[in-house]
């Protein structure tokens, strides 16, 4: 009951937040909120694979890049957003499968190294495949444009409209996370994280379940990419560096692996706070944020390795079954 009230109040705040920002003239805050939303999608996706299944994926950002670039390429051709969206998601899942099939045979650190490498290769390809991606100059090229999504009479162009569009997908993502967590598939994911051999012997087809989770998480990355591209209307390889992947992992670890409230909190913290501090302390602060994050992470690992809001397993009512 208390939870319901909390969600209700939170929902109202989220709905009126842009209006409050606008009336205060804080347009910049609204932009940050949209950015936090994009990161939330990415972190919710990474949480499935890192938090639930326990696979250290250091190249998740590559699929964000795929999402963004594929969406940009189709959108430049003049395709409708609502067509580009499922198409991009589908293609990104396919690319994820192609990586997952060989890479998931590896465990632990080896998987981390392969995904890290894949992330960097992706960025380098985007940077150098001039004829397709326009290299470091990014898309769209001069004279081209990414069309704004339309829904009936609405055109999504302003920060405020994208705030709501992103919010919609973030809420979908959160519901997905919770529903999966308390389901047969989600339990299998966590079981694999806890003990792969025991999970396999208990009747879980570990390699199939892993591959599925790995591919499924790409949906979130693709969505984030599509939304980002259509919102900012520009993509370039520099948005998809290794550091971005590290940030995503940081948010999941900081928040608490597998803990949805935790990672949401951590994302707001890691994306939001530097921006606020930048406006207070000036742009030079940005140069120090890595230092601060590094320090905070070291402290976390020592004093609170389970994260800010540790993931809690659901408790169920335990009455003995009627016919003992």
């Amino acid at each position: 009951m208390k939870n319901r009230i909390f969600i209700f109040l939170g929902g109202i705040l989220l709905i009126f937040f842009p209006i409050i920002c606008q009336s205060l003239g804080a347009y910049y805050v609204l932009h940050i909120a949209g950015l936090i939303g994009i990161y939330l999608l990415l972190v919710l996706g990474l949480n499935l694979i890192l938090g639930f299944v326990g696979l250290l994926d250091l190249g998740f950002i590559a699929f964000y890049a795929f999402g963004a670039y594929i969406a940009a390429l189709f959108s430049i051709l003049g395709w409708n957003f609502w067509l580009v969206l499922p198409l991009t998601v589908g293609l990104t899942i396919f690319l994820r499968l192609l990586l997952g099939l060989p890479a998931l045979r590896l465990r632990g650190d080896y998987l981390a190294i392969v995904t890290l490498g894949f992330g960097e290769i992706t960025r380098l390809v985007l940077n150098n495949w001039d004829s397709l991606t326009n290299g470091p100059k990014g898309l769209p090229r001069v004279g081209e444009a990414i069309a704004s999504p339309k829904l009936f009479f609405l055109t999504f162009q302003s920060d405020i409209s994208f705030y709501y569009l992103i919010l919609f997908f973030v809420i979908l993502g959160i519901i997905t996370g919770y529903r999966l967590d308390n389901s047969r598939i989600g339990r299998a994911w966590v079981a694999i994280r806890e003990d792969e051999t025991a999970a396999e012997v208990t009747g879980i087809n570990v390699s199939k379940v892993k591959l599925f989770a790995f591919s499924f998480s790409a949906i979130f990355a693709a969505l984030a990419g599509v939304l980002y591209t259509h919102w900012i209307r520009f993509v370039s390889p520099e948005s998809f560096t290794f550091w971005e992947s590290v940030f995503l992992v940081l948010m999941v670890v900081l928040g608490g692996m597998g803990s949805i409230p935790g990672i949401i909190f951590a994302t707001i913290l890691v994306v939001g706070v530097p921006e606020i501090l930048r406006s207070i302390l000036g742009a030079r602060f940005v140069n120090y944020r890595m230092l601060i994050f590094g320090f905070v992470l070291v402290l976390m690992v020592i004093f609170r390795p389970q994260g800010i809001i540790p993931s809690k397993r659901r408790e169920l009512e335990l009455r003995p079954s009627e016919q003992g």
Partner: protein
Amino acid sequence: MLLKVEEVSKHFGGLLALDNLSLTVTQGEIVGLIGPNGAGKTTFFNLLTGIYAPDKGKIFFSDHRIDGLPAHRISVLGISRTFQNIRLFAQMTALENVMVGRHCRTRAEVREALMRTPEFIREEDEIQEKAKELLDFVGLLPQGNELAKNLPYGDQRRLEIARALATEPKLLLLDEPTAGMNPAEAEKLMSLIQKIRLQGITVILIEHQMDVVMNISDRIVVLNYGEKIAEGEPAEIQKNPLVIDAYLGTGTS
């Protein structure tokens, strides 16, 4: 014949862990598997459950050839086990551990889970009910919401049994279930194994406590250096000179 092992061998590098082992187990038996450390008992379990494939030989389980099958397939066919060094899902609750055991007997995929379809809800209730029933069966229902890692040692052993039973096995393999237990706890565990047998589940049991294994087993199989050196009823085994040698060393008289 529930289980038929034909001339199975397995070696790790130069070490011959199992040497031409043949064995049959019939439905409803409790078979005790004993032998000194390193005799190949756990390796035998690992072969039966698909963690390793044998280098040579065949394994049949209720008319299926299972050697070389992946572990999850074997689990679906009806072999389940516990581990010598307890392997629970530490960060999950006791109840969830057992619910995971229902995985291979249930069907809901992601789509059903996301849509919360009526079938999903029904199946989820069923999983919960069955898991509670099993927790109750091993006497852990009150601790159902505890994280597995927080349970005392003896409870963890019983939880592992409950998880194994959740897969609806025909054959249950117990790897030193009383290890680290005091005599009273071991006694309780033995009556639990009897109860499991009464449900028609066949049990193979690796055990070091001789009084325990001699009491409960219908038949004993003795391994030494990967070879079967004796097989028979507990009373015969206790008198078998080969077994006495293996355990106590050869007398010099």
